């Protein structure tokens, strides 16, 4: 039996500059932030980030890791616009490849099914075909003769998601309201598929943890490495394990205001080991509770 456990640094060691990396979650929900922080600390650069984006894209933009952003939206949910991505975009620092969020699903599904494209109406009439050079059009071979948008398969070099529980072989479950598109993200990469989880449990405990087998939606064929990291999605939400840390997210957003503020945030919360980060978060939360 293969034990696929690995550290955040072990994940980073398998990534290379210039790669296209898919990141799971949605907005500021269940993002693999401990691995994002490790990438932010690394020497990696020129990444193409594929994401239903939130602070994953924000942190990587603010630390200069992103060459190209491939995304249908970027939001911190409770803070509608992502200030670090805005700053990078408005300074013209990153390439921008816009998508519709449903169309995004088709690109991942096409890669997972190993077909070059999937057809859709989505995009017709909008500026997506003008602004996204990877989109093409396709004519139906059937009697309807309909002209549709051809959504190309996303070829991911790596995929990284955060789930609630996994066993050490990479079977995993989500415990919150929505899987989002994590299974497709992991299926759209041929290799370098990593998950971080709140807790590694014995395989026999997965169904009990999930309450039902219906939540066991990531299997070990889809996963090459498992990072066990309680709090690994912090400061995004990872319900029911924890809600979004809104106070922390506000300070993250405020750090976009000046280079000095960002330097301070970065020194405190990114250029530190993940163990130190989690320790400091624990202390901060104890302090917040005490001051209530």
């Amino acid at each position, binding site marked *: 039996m293969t034990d696929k456990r690995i550290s955040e640094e072990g994940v980073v060691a398998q990534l290379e500059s210039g790669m296209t990396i898919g990141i799971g979650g949605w907005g500021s929900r269940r993002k693999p932030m401990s691995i994002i922080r490790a990438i932010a600390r690394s020497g990696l650069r020129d990444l193409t980030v594929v994401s239903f984006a939130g602070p994953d894209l924000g942190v990587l933009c603010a630390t200069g890791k992103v060459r190209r952003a491939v995304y249908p939206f970027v939001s911190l949910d409770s803070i*509608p616009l992502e200030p670090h991505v805005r700053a990078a975009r408005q300074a013209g620092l990153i390439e921008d490849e816009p998508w519709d969020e449903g169309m995004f*699903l088709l690109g991942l599904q096409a890669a997972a099914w190993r077909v070059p494209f999937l057809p859709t109406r989505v995009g017709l009439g909008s500026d997506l075909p003008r602004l996204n050079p990877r989109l093409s059009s396709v004519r139906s071979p059937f009697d309807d003769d309909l002209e549709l948008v051809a959504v190309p398969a996303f070829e991911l070099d790596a995929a990284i998601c955060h789930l609630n529980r996994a066993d050490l072989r990479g079977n995993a479950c989500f415990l919150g309201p929505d899987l989002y598109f994590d299974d497709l993200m992991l299926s759209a990469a041929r290799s370098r598929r990593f998950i971080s989880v709140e807790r590694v449990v014995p395989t026999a405990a997965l169904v009990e943890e999930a309450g039902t087998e219906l939540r066991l939606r990531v299997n070990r064929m889809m996963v090459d490495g498992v990072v066990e990291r309680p709090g690994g999605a912090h400061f995004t939400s990872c319900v029911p394990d924890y809600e979004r840390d809104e106070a922390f997210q506000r300070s993250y957003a405020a750090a976009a205001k000046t280079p000095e503020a960002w330097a301070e945030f970065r020194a405190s919360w990114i250029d530190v080991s993940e163990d130190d980060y989690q320790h400091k978060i624990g202390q901060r939360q104890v302090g917040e509770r005490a001051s209530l």
Partner: protein
Amino acid sequence: MTDISRADICVVAIAECFRGDGEIVANPIGTIPMIGGRLARASFEPELMMTDGEAALIANDEAFRWPNGKVVEYYNPYRSMFDVVWRGRRHVIMGATQIDPFGNQNFAAIGPDYAKPKTQLLGFRGAPGNTVNNATSYWIPNHSPKVFVEKVDVVTGVGWDRAAAAGRGATEFFDLRLVVTNLAVLDFSGPDHRMALRSVHPGVSVEEVVAATGFELVVPADVPTSRQPTEEELRLITEVIDPDDLRHTEIP
């Protein structure tokens, strides 16, 4: 009877967007839209289905709090939502940072150069897919020439002219309906589906709406006044759907 506020008028105007929709997902996005959608369902459009903003369709009347718990009638994660949208069983009410005379919408980026925008916004979100697959209306709480522009910088949601130019794939299920603002209700009944004034809210003049619109609005000879809530509607809004008075945080 309680004083009727502008926000109450807007809630009713939003509710009216869903009249006749029947058994579809009503997906009004934002505070007043959500209250308006709930009002439609609690009164004249009882077959509507509505989300909790997360991954469930819920049957409760309340818009934001569920003091006695949610009554879930369907598990509807994001992936299922695309099944609903692409089958056309939905009427969405979106926002817009810019909207043009034919209803092309932008909430992705402001400025002439998309590669280096003056202001980066949300992105395309689901707007391209929504507008060519299901019924779409808009809610604009700040009717002004900065929002109502001759030409949007980026087309995220598709308008009537762009749909027609894109061909049958875009027009077959295209169903762009109404624009509700803090001043008025607009539709696309003008020549070539150009935006027209449908009603002005009580206390608002036609001139005010025209001045707040950055393009030539089609104005019929007689412009009616947006309707008032009934007493029962007002009771539903204030006692059941929005007892926390959140609608007045959006339109004071």
